[in-house]
C-alpha cells in the first residue's frame, strides 16, 4: 500500500517535469500549429549548454540565468531565419526542417560532448527530501520542478490573457489572416513564440539535468513525452498540458512499479488509450 502511495507521488512529480518539457511544445502548437521535431534535442542542447557553463566555473544558477535568454535568442533566430520561410499550407517543409535540425543538434552534441552520460550537480539539494510521515519522503528537487512547471504556466497565462502582446498572440492563433489585417506582424509573433518555447526548454533542461543522467541521444524520447502530454491535455490549454504531463508521469511510474521494463511503454500506452477514448484530449480548447 505504502509502495503504491509512493509510486503515485513520484509519478505526479515526474509529470511535473514532463509538463515542463511539454509547455514549450504546447505554446508553439497553440499559436503556430507547428510541430517542432527538434524539441527534445533542443532541451538536451540546453542541458549541455548549462553543463558547459558550469564546467567553466560558472555557478549553476548563473549558468541557468544565462542559458534561458540564450535559448530564447536561439528560438527567435531559428524561427525568423529558417522556419518563417517555410510557412504555408503545406506542412511538410516546416516538419522536415525541424527533423533535419533534430539530427543536426543530436549529432552536433555527440561530436562536441561525446556519448558519455552527464549530470548537473546541485550539491546537497540533490538528495534533500521532505519527510511526509508514514515512511514517504518527497524529493526537494522534483518538488521544485513541479512548482516551476506551475509557475511557468501561471506566467504564460498572464502573458497571453492579461497583456496587449498576449492579445496579439491569441489573435494570431485564432485567425492569422484577420490578425494581419489588424496590423499584427505574424512573423515576429511566431519568432517570439519560438523564443518563449526554447526559453521554457532551457528551464526544463535544468530539471532534466539535475534529475537524471543525460546524453546526446535522449532528445527524441523527451519529444515524445512532451507531445503525449500536449495531446492528452488537449490542444490550446496549458493547464491541460500540465494534466497531460502528470498522466504520462503517473502511467510511467505505475508501469515501472509493476515491472521496470514497462515504464516507457506504459506512458505510450496511456497516450494511445486517451487517443482512442478522447481524441481531442482531456481539456480541449482549440479546434485542430
Amino acid at each position, binding site marked *: 500500500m505504502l509502495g503504491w502511495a509512493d509510486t503515485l507521488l513520484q509519478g505526479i512529480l515526474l509529470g511535473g517535469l514532463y509538463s515542463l518539457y511539454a509547455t514549450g511544445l504546447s505554446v508553439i502548437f497553440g499559436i503556430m500549429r507547428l510541430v517542432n521535431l527538434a524539441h527534445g534535442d533542443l532541451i538536451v542542447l540546453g542541458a549541455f549548454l548549462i553543463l558547459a557553463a558550469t564546467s567553466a566555473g560558472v555557478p549553476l544558477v548563473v549558468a541557468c540565468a544565462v542559458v534561458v535568454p540564450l535559448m530564447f535568442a536561439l528560438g527567435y533566430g531559428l524561427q525568423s531565419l529558417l522556419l518563417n520561410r517555410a510557412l504555408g499550407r503545406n506542412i511538410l*517543409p516546416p516538419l522536415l526542417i525541424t527533423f533535419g535540425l*533534430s539530427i543536426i543538434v543530436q549529432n552536433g552534441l555527440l561530436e562536441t560532448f561525446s556519448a558519455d552520460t552527464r549530470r548537473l550537480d546541485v550539491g546537497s539539494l540533490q538528495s534533500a527530501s521532505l519527510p511526509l510521515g508514514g515512511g514517504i519522503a518527497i524529493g526537494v528537487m522534483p518538488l521544485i520542478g513541479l512548482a516551476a512547471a506551475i509557475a511557468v504556466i501561471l506566467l504564460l497565462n498572464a502573458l497571453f490573457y492579461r497583456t496587449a502582446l498576449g492579445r496579439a498572440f491569441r489573435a494570431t492563433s485564432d485567425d492569422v489572416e484577420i490578425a494581419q489585417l489588424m496590423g499584427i506582424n505574424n512573423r515576429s509573433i511566431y519568432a517570439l513564440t519560438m523564443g518563449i518555447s526554447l526559453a521554457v526548454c532551457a528551464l526544463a533542461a535544468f530539471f532534466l539535468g539535475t534529475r537524471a543522467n543525460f546524453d546526446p541521444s535522449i532528445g527524441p524520447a523527451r519529444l515524445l513525452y512532451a507531445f503525449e502530454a500536449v495531446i492528452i491535455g488537449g490542444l490550446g490549454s496549458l493547464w491541460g498540458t500540465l494534466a497531460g504531463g502528470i498522466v504520462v508521469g503517473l502511467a510511467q511510474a505505475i508501469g515501472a512499479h509493476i515491472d521496470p521494463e514497462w515504464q516507457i511503454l506504459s506512458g505510450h500506452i496511456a497516450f494511445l488509450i486517451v487517443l482512442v477514448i478522447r481524441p481531442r484530449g482531456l481539456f480541449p480548447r482549440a479546434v485542430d
Partner: protein
Amino acid sequence: MPFGTANLGGKKSDAAGGRFAVARETRASTITLIAALPAIIVLFALPAFADRSLLQQLFYVFTMLSLAQLWNLLAGSAGLISVGQQAFVGVGAYALFAFAVVAGLDAVLSIVLSGALAGLVAIPIALIVFRLRGAYFAIGTWVVAEVCRLVLAQVKQLGGGTGTSLPPDIASAIAGLDFVRNLFAVRGPAARDIMVYWLALVLALATFVLVYRLLRSRHGLALSALGDSEIAAESTGVDVFRTKFLIYVVTAAATGMVGALIFLQKARISPDAAFSLIDWTAYVIFIVVIGGIGSMEGPIIGVAIFYLLQYYLAALGSWYLILLGGLAIVLMLFAPSGIWGVISQAFDISLFPVRRRLIAKSGTTPEQADKPQNRR
C-alpha cells in the same frame, strides 16, 4: 487552373466538344519504358558477372528505393507524413524471424507472410493514429513505432532486448538456393547473396509497379483531388478516410515485406536495429526529399545521390548525418520539390506520368493543356 488534374477522371471522351483528348503517355515516358526493359534484364543477369560486394551494395540500394517509393506514396501523394514507418520495417523483420525460426517456414514464403502481418497490424494502428491530423499524425506514428519496438523487446523467444541471429541452416533455407549454386557454380554464402539480390530487385520492381499503378488508378485520381482540396474532393464523392486508410495499410504491408527481406539478408535482428528511426525513416525521407517528393522519378534520383553520399562520406560518422540534415533543410527552403521537381519544371518532362493532360487535337496546342499541371 482551367484544366484541373482532378476533374478529368472520365474516359477518353472529348470533354470539350471533340477538340481535345486526354492523354497520359509522353514521348519521354514511352522511350523510358522501352529503355527500361533491357536495363531490367541486365540487372537480373548481373550475378553472372558481378562480384559479391556489388550485389550487396545494390541490395541496399534496391531495398532503400522500395522504402522510398512507399514513403513517397504515403507522404507525397496521400499527405500522410509518417515518421514511424520503421514500425512496419521492424514488424515485418520480426515476423520473418518468427515464421522462419519459430515456425520453420521457407524464407520467401515468410517474407510474403510478414508483409501480410504488417498490413494486418497497420489496421488497428491506422484507426488510432488517423485521429491525429497533419503534423500531429507524424509524431503519433513515431509513438506507435516506439510501442512496437518496446513490445517486441519483451518477446524473449525472439531475443528480447538484445536480439537474436538466424541459425545458418535457416538463413540459407531459401527455395531455389541449390539451383542458384549449381547455375553459377558458387558456394552457399555467395548463392545466398545472389538470391537476396534477386529478391530485392523483384521487390523494388513490384513496389514501383504497385505505386505506379495505384497512382494511375481511380485511387490515384482521388489522391490527387485530395491534394488539391479535401473538402472539394469529398463533395465530389471521394471517401477521404477510405482512400487514406487503403494507402496506409497497403504501404505498411509492402514496407513489412521490405523489412523482412532486409533482415533476412542481415540474418541478425535487434529491436534497436529493426526499429531504427535513422535507418528506415530519416534516410528514406532524405532520399525522397532530395530526389523530389510526389513524383515517381524522385526516389530513383534520390537513392542514387544518397548512395553516392553514403559511399564517400559515411566514414565521417556524425558529421555525415549533420550534412544530410543540413542538405534536407536547404532543400526544403530553396527547392521543396527536389531535384526532379526542378528538372521536370525546367524541361517539361515526365518519365513516369501519373497525371492526365489535355491535348488539343486540331494541331494548335493550347498553352495550358501542354504545360504540366501544378504538382499536388
